[in-house]
């Protein structure tokens, strides 16, 4: 490719972007909105997950002793991490939606699409870690572990476990949507009409 042709092509590309409106990607935007709602729902349902119950813990003579026990999410570090990871994911989606709506003029040295793709992948990694930890901690709560003498808690705190399960399902939906979004963001990098692609000098 002669360099003169390359220069002409670059100028044409810049003029096109300035004059015609770039087509908004509605599919990506709607996926981000749904993912934002899913991860935000997971965060709030798990953060407000609480159940208080008074259980009989023993008897003295003939009078039973009751103690009021409460199950909260911050007693388990795995659930705290789950809340933090999903909060992070929903904040990331919110910022990306805002960036998309505010238009393509926010650019950092032409690396806007690459930064979006990298940040999408990092958020996906965090969400996946939060999901994994919370899933197996809930499984431990539901089934216990007979070898380690850890009793199950879900038979006593039924609605706590059910709400935690609902938060987990919402978080899985958000994670799958994040995966699709990340793949689409990386696919956007491959398109030839992006403005950050400087013509590479012919070797």
């Amino acid at each position, binding site marked *: 490719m002669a360099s003169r042709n390359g220069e002409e092509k670059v100028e044409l590309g810049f003029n096109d972007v300035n004059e015609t409106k770039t087509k908004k990607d509605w599919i990506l935007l709607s996926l981000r909105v749904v993912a934002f709602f899913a991860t935000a729902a997971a965060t709030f349902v798990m953060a407000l997950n609480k159940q208080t119950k008074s259980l009989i813990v023993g008897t003295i003579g003939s009078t039973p002793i009751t103690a009021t*026990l409460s*199950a*909260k999410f911050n*007693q*388990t*570090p*795995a659930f705290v*991490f789950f809340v933090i990871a999903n909060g992070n994911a929903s904040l990331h989606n919110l910022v990306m939606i805002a960036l998309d709506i505010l238009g393509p003029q926010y650019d950092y040295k032409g690396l806007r699409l*690459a930064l979006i*793709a*990298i940040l999408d*992948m990092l958020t*996906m*990694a965090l969400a*996946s*870690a*939060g*999901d*994994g*930890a*919370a*899933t*197996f*901690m809930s*499984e*431990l*709560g539901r089934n216990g*572990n007979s*070898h*380690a*003498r*850890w*009793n199950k*808690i879900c038979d006593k705190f039924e609605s706590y476990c059910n709400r935690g399960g609902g938060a987990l399902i919402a978080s899985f939906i958000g994670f799958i949507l994040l*995966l699709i979004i*990340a*793949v689409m963001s*990386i696919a956007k*990098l*491959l398109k030839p009409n992006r403005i950050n*692609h400087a013509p*590479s000098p012919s070797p």
Partner: protein
Amino acid sequence: MAKTSRICHLLLRFLAFSATLSAVIVMVSSHERATFFNVSFEAKYTTSPALKYFVIANSVVTVYGFLVLFLPAESLLWRLVVAMDMVLTMLLISSLSAALAIAQVAKQGNNSAAWLPICGSVPKFCNHITGALIASFIGVIIYMILLLHSIHSVLDPLLLKKT
């Protein structure tokens, strides 16, 4: 230039393969027998579903890493490798996080659920699990570096296929 880049890439993949392989081996070979109150129990990785998931995920990533090492440089399958890299890295991260959550309960217990820590009675088992988690963590870091390298090679397609 492309040759050194390819050698670097292969070296990173080999390091990741050996990290996940050692995580599998260390976790599978961890077992300890302990007795308390006349009841003897054996602590193995099969007693916990999270540790089983950890072994399965790391084995899958080990086999995948081994197969990718032998992929020729100009094959069209490298695009599939970029996609599979992402999916398997997320699998690895979630398995590491699950095993970490269970190991944290084993080490420190959970007061509210009346779960006692078991690492006091089986210290060798706990050290084995710690070693396997560290090896898998190294594998995760290397796979994240490989993912960033894949994005860089997507931006600069000369690295993916020969012109």
